[in-house]
């Protein structure tokens, strides 16, 4: 059964090729069938593979399928191989599962589009690339998926290619991602330099006995990889592309910019947990960047009026949570949140999508209001997901976020926890701000037209995702030991053999004469302090409710309040303008580069080429100079002979 693994990414890719080449001839319905058939098929295959994996003998946690040698150069041999292990299985399930649902939704959403087929060509291709990303058994294959999804996201953001803003957003996304990829490549190069291989199994098994704990190399590798992750997962400082990416059609935002692609960074960091375990410094960096982003993005999210932008910033901040979790070593929590987030954020996006769809592509929330009667299903599902993301018991978000906060406090420190908590509060606030502005209050759109719930094909996915968002939390119920299914499932992946690390590093440090640190990041046991845990849950619940009530007061009870209190405050302005980060990047990086290059070009013509043409000019000049001496008078010629004679005479004597 496992043997079928290679089909999983292939099917969507084939689907994409078919759509791309014959889409126009086939007609929309056929295209729709093919486009949705692919992902669903690969979802089923994933289930089969999962079954096969469960049937593997006890203690076998990794199963590799090597298709062929991709790049064989001397001792550098990269296989095209897939690795099936708990982590990749989880990702595959999420990607193909959520992916299929969103594909179905997209059929409804994009149906009016002329280049329907083009959309699904990209969409399927994306799914294939994403599956390669999570299934690859080495860094380079991951990189194929990594850039593949980036490329598809570029296509899909720029789907409406006649809109300049869309094209700019697409290009921006690609280039910003490239910055990350640059670091990623360097990371991979470092890894090969250290391990002489880039296969996960080799590298991770060799790592504890190759890299010294906290050594420069270890840190460099991790930092580079993490920078790569920030690019893909829109973390500080490379987050700016994600909000702009909302130019793409809503299903794209749901699948690529919320559920799957943007979490690739988290997956990668989780995948390399062994390496990160070797470098406490980089762990801290990950944690703080994550926490920082969580808060930072949330603050921006509070003041946005474009419904999708709010969701975009909330995505950024949620991924921040995941990194926070990774940073404190709570990889399970990170993946857990990744899953739940995939559910509710996808649902939210799709919901917003159906609203936008029903509101004739109006995205400004200030022009909504009181839509709950027009969009009953959307409203309910949206509400569920919102509660989930806000972290209300017993919805999925509650468990996952809460686990992260718990670990932030226990394995991290109070500051990280503070960040998390603030983020949670803000999240609850702006999400409900969104809900209230959209579905409640009095209608602010012109009443001439009647918003309408979209067709079944779009509402069904909403329901499914809402359901997942509701019950998804059951995957990992904390406190009660053994009920945390996900934890036990992922344990083999995230198990770090601390003892080997400590032994190797210790002797190595002694040999090198460094003082041996306390390996506290490795040694300390994740404590199970049940009362504390419960009390923390209470606290975070309170925080969430606090956020909601605040939102309630501002946007339902006293709708005037925001303007009267905050109107024109510099803080609000700053947040509204997203801290003017884009502007500054443009001013201090982009413009100077372009202008600089322009002068370089001029210099190229003037100086570098000038030297060449200059030589020619000099020769011409000389030849003009020499001309008059050929005067045509015999006496001159004779004179020159005599002069030459004297010159030679002098030379000889």
């Amino acid at each position: 059964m496992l043997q079928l693994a290679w089909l999983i990414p292939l099917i969507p890719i084939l689907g994409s090729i078919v759509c791309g080449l014959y889409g126009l001839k086939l007609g929309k319905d056929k295209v729709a069938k093919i486009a949705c058939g692919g992902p669903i098929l690969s979802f089923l295959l994933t289930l089969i593979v999962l079954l096969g994996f469960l049937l593997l003998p006890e203690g076998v946690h990794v199963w590799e399928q090597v298709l062929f040698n991709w790049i064989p150069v001397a001792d550098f041999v990269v296989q095209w191989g897939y690795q099936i292990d708990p982590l990749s299985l989880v990702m595959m399930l999420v990607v193909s599962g959520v992916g299929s649902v969103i594909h179905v939704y997209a059929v409804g959403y994009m149906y009016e589009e002329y280049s329907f087929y083009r959309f699904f060509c990209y969409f399927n291709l994306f799914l294939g690339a994403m599956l390669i990303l999570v299934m690859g058994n080495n860094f380079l294959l991951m990189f194929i998926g990594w850039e593949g999804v980036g490329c598809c996201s570029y296509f899909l953001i720029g789907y409406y290619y006649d809109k300049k803003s869309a094209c700019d957003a697409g290009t921006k996304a690609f280039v910003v991602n490239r910055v990350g990829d640059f670091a990623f490549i360097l990371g991979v190069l470092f890894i090969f330099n250290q391990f002489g291989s880039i296969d996960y199994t080799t590298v991770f098994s060799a790592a504890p006995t190759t890299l010294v704990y906290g050594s420069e190399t270890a840190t460099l590798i991790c930092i580079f990889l993490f920078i790569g992750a920030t690019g893909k997962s829109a973390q500080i400082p490379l987050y700016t592309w994600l909000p702009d990416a909302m130019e793409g059609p809503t299903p794209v935002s749901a699948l690529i910019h919320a559920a799957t692609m943007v979490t690739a960074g988290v997956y990668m960091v989780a995948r390399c947990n062994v390496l990160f375990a070797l470098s406490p410094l980089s762990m801290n960096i990950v944690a703080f960047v994550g926490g920082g982003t969580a808060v930072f993005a949330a603050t921006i999210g509070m003041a946005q009026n474009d419904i999708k932008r709010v969701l975009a910033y909330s995505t950024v901040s949620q991924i921040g949570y995941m990194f926070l979790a990774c940073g404190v070593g709570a990889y399970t929590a990170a993946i857990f949140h990744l899953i739940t987030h995939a559910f509710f954020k996808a649902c939210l996006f799709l919901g917003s999508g159906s609203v936008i769809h029903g509101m004739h592509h109006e995205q400004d929330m200030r022009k909504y209001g009181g839509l709950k009667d027009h969009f009953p299903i959307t409203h309910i599902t949206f509400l569920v997901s919102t509660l989930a993301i806000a972290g209300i018991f017993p919805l999925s978000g509650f468990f996952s976020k809460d686990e992260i906060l718990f670990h932030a406090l226990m394995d991290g420190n109070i500051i990280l926890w503070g960040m998390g908590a603030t983020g949670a509060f803000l999240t609850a606030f702006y999400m409900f701000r969104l809900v209230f502005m959209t579905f409640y209050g009095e209608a602010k759109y012109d009443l001439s037209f009647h918003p309408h719930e979209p067709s079944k094909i779009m509402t069904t996915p909403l329901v499914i995702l809402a359901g997942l968002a509701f019950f998804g939390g059951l995957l990992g119920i904390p406190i009660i030991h053994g009920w945390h299914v996900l934890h036990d499932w992922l344990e083999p992946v995230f198990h770090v053999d601390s003892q080997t690390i400590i032994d190797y590093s210790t002797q190595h440090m002694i040999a090198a004469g460094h003082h041996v640190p306390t390996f506290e990041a490795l040694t300390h046991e994740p404590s199970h302090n049940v009362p504390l845990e419960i009390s923390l849950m209470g606290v975070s619940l309170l925080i969430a409710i606090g956020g909601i009530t605040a939102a309630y007061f501002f946007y339902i009870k006293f709708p005037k309040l925001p303007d009267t209190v905050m109107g024109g405050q510099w803080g609000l302005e700053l947040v509204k303008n997203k801290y003017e980060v884009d502007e500054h990047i443009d001013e201090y990086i982009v413009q100077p580069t372009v202008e600089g290059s322009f002068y370089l070009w001029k210099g190229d013509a003037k100086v570098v080429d000038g030297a060449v043409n200059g030589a020619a000019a000099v020769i011409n000049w000389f030849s003009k100079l020499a001309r008059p001496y050929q005067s045509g008078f015999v006496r001159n010629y004779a004179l020159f002979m005599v002069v030459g004679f004297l010159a030679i005479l002098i030379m000889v004597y």
Partner: protein
Amino acid sequence: MNMIPAPEIDFVSLAPVLVLSVFAMGVLVLDLFIGKNKTILAYISIIGLFISAMSSFGHADLPVSSFNGAYVVDNVSIFFTFVFAISSALAILLSINYNERVGIKIGEYYALILFCTVGMIVLCSSTDMIMIFLGIEIVSISLYILAGIRRTDQRSNEAALKYFLLGAFASGFLLYGMALVYGATGSTKLAEISSTLVAGGVKSQAILLGGVVLLMIGFGFKIASVPFHMWAPDVYQGAPTPVTAFMAVGPKAAVLAAFFRVFADGLHDVAASWETALMAVAVLSMFVGNLGAIMQTNIKRLLAYSSVSHAGYLLVAIIAKNSLGASSLGFYMLAYAFTTFGAFAIVIILGRKGDENLEIENYSGLGYKHPLLALSMAIFLLSLGGLPPFAGFVGKFYVFSAALKEGYVMLVVIAVLNSVVSFYYYLKVIVYMYMTEQKVEFQPTFSPYALLVVAIAVLGTIQLGIFPGPVIALAQ
């Protein structure tokens, strides 16, 4: 009162010279009895050239020195004899039609070419300064006349006058040089001179060096090297085109051979003193020749200047002073003969009665009106520039290797860079022929003889470029 011992005469060695002289006189006499059409004379002269070239194989084992070492027959001299025969023959072929066109109805013309060739053969095989002087003068005097053979044409006259006065002036220097060398070494025979130098039996170093310098000027003038080149452009332009081609190749080759014998053999021992000066002359010739050519709009002047720069390259071979140098001279001149005659042949073909049509712009669009002519012209120019796989390249390669063998790297580098400059003006002609629209109507006069010359030249150029092996074997 002791007698001058009369040396026994070696007719075998002299055979080429004698044969040619006889034919020349024959032509002179015959001229009186035939009518207006002198073509027959041309045929006879060519036959004469052929026979004399063949007769140079008289000796079984070379080298043979006769007349008390005043005259020698060796590979070099034989090879050069062939170069002369070929070039003179080509010149005659070119002349036949041209002379009718421009109205040169003088039978002596061919006789003069033959006499000139006699002088060249003497020049390249003599090892005695007296003989060398005689050779040079035979060559020069015939050339003075040939240059001015179009008596009614002012340019021709002017060319003759300039060439004559300056030539005589230069011979003065040459002669004085010979005299001083003779005085310093007590002999006019190169062999004895060098032995005296080796033995250190020089009477006065000062006189000797003075002589060397004067010789350098005399020879330098004849091969048109800077700063003694200034006659060349004017004379080349003024003289009838076949004569121009002729004097660009044959005499230059002959003088170079003598130059080589005197300096590389005779004065080898004092090379240190003249080497630098000669290098200076060589480098100057390259630069001035190329720079001068760039500006030219008249194809004949352009070729004249390019021949100045070629003189520069050839001096490199003399500076090398080794056997490779001698043979490379021969090969280079042969290649140069083919390319130059080919080029001038096309120049002649493109001219017509009353209009020489020498402006380079007028060649615009030739490549599509007369593709074969243009193609051959391009081949000749590229060969002159030294681009493989044409003869010129092999010649350059040969000369440069001769110099590099002796380690004159800088000199060769300069020469090489100069040939890049030379490409510039050769390409300019090609640009006109292929890359600009036709300006004037072409009215070429296709004469079978000229076309024959072109054909021979193309074959020679390519043959020497692609399969130079046999010829090189001969030259060595």
